[in-house]
């Protein structure tokens, strides 16, 4: 391990970090944009969900490299190919997250919203999706972490990512670069994960302290109730 390598290559490290983060974040976000309408449809029409889930899982089973091979003739050797591949892979986590999140909305809440005169679209946007946020973000965390990790493979078709350090380190027989790429991937994944946790906290102020709102404190409130 040559520690001096790190400061000497700071610009390079930063550039690859940004590139890898871009791929690792954009793909799940596009995946989310696809998963929300698909998930909503799966909840509205229950029979759609099993085939959709099977397809999403089947796609996940295809080796990432094979996805690149299939896509390259159409989308070329570039970001687009990697993003499409990672997006497709994220769907098998994100669609179930959206479906589970929406199904987790308590029936009385949904019924009360309908009975108060929410239209279906408004109920979805203002009540059901906000309540599904914790579950959706839990899925997004898995998708982002795995995308950040898988983005390295993009280097195989020349797309800049941490994969560069692995390939370069291997070719030059320079383990420091490989260890660095390994550590950078983990650190980036953890940082992005923390960002998502922060986002969830911001979006769901109502969920704070909710798990503790049981047992004794609930009993105490019941006693002091007017």
């Amino acid at each position, binding site marked *: 391990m040559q520690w001096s390598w790190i400061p000497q290559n700071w610009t390079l490290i930063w550039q690859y970090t940004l590139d890898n983060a871009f791929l690792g974040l954009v793909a799940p976000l596009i995946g989310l944009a696809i998963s929300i309408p698909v998930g909503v449809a799966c909840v509205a029409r229950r029979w759609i969900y099993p085939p959709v889930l099977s397809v999403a899982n089947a796609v996940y089973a295809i080796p990432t490299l094979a996805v690149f091979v299939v896509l390259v003739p159409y989308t070329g050797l570039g970001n687009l190919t990697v993003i499409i591949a990672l997006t497709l892979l994220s769907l098998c986590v994100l669609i179930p997250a959206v479906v589970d999140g929406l199904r987790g909305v308590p029936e009385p809440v949904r019924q009360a919203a309908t*009975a*108060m*005169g929410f239209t279906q679209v408004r109920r979805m946007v203002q009540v059901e999706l906000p309540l599904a946020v914790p579950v959706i973000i839990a899925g997004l965390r898995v998708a982002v972490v795995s995308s950040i990790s898988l983005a390295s493979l993009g280097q195989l078709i020349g797309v800049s990512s941490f994969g560069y350090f692995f390939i370069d380190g291997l070719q030059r027989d320079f383990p420091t670069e490989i260890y660095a790429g390994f550590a950078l991937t983990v650190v980036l994944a953890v940082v992005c994960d923390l960002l998502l946790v922060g986002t969830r906290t911001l979006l769901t*102020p109502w969920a704070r302290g909710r798990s503790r709102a049981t047992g004794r404190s609930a009993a105490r409130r019941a006693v002091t109730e007017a």
Partner: protein
Amino acid sequence: MITFETVTKRYPDGTVAVDSLNLDIPDGRIMVLVGPSGCGKTTTLRMINRLVEPTSGRILLDGANVADTDPSQLRRGIGYVIQQTGLFPHRTIEDNIATVPLLTGWKRGRATSRARELMDLVGLDPATMARRYPHQLSGGQQQRVGVARALAADPPVLLMDEPFSAVDPIVRAALQDELIRLQAELHKTVVLVTHDVEEAIKVGDLVAVFRPGGHLAQVDTPERLLGAPVDDYVRDFVGFDRGIRRLSFFAAAGLDLATDTVLPAGTAHADAIAAAKHAGEPWLLVVDADGRPLGWAAVAELEPGAAGAALTEVGLAPVGHTFRPDTDSLRAALDATILSRTERAVGVDATGRVIGTTSYERLRDAIRAAEDAAASDAARVQQTAGEAG
């Protein structure tokens, strides 16, 4: 006025939830739909705001078929309260209450101040609770928020589906009292579903008793339901002690209270004995200078020769529970009488001064008179209905 015209709801599996229902729900009254589970009462309620669509028949709201109104528009004009409250976990209490005003396009500030006004109305402190989330409130408080939310846009109709079933009996009684108080102020057309016949009788102006299979067994005032159930089903359903419970609907003002056996503490024993003998009573009620009850003196313990001795010098039996003839029912008067060691209870006015005393004979006469009056009322109502029909 909400009118059900031969409304039937049949589910695809063949279950008939409601069968040819005809029912008029008058404006400004509380109509309680009561019955065992599976009798169609909740389905009936949900057909009013089109959460359930009838298979056949019409439901008219102020003469207009609800099926002709856009469901979302219709529902914004009808308050809805459910057992599990259905509060939005992700919205603060004030935002929950402001839901319908915001849906109908009120400005945020106006909606918020309306929400706080309603919190006051249902007995929640806006200063401490407006910004809280539902899970931070007790079950009873959440139910109050549910009621406030239903009232926010001031709808003329309020639908309540087992609104108080999920809270403990003490909170439930408080919420029922609250509903009665609110209704006296607001005069909404309330349709309330419950399986609890006690609740139906307590809060209802009218009670519709459903039979399993979606049939209506009887629609009547609570008092008539207890006094004149149409058949064995209703009789069993309202319960074995309906005779006693019915007395809640008769005012204690109809009691002829004894006054000649109420004597000031300073009365001479000889005079007291004479008064008791004249009234044929074994007990005398002793009162202080202000007319407030001190206790019961047993006539047998008084001594005709005792000059200048106060009535209080003999051991007085306790007064026990008193009742207010001007506000209480015959049930309260009977209860106080039964609980009294002397088989007599004391009626007092608002300031606690004695008006007079009961006895079983006096109660019996009052109950008979009240029942006769109720029976002739009922006969008159039926006659009018017959003429109208």
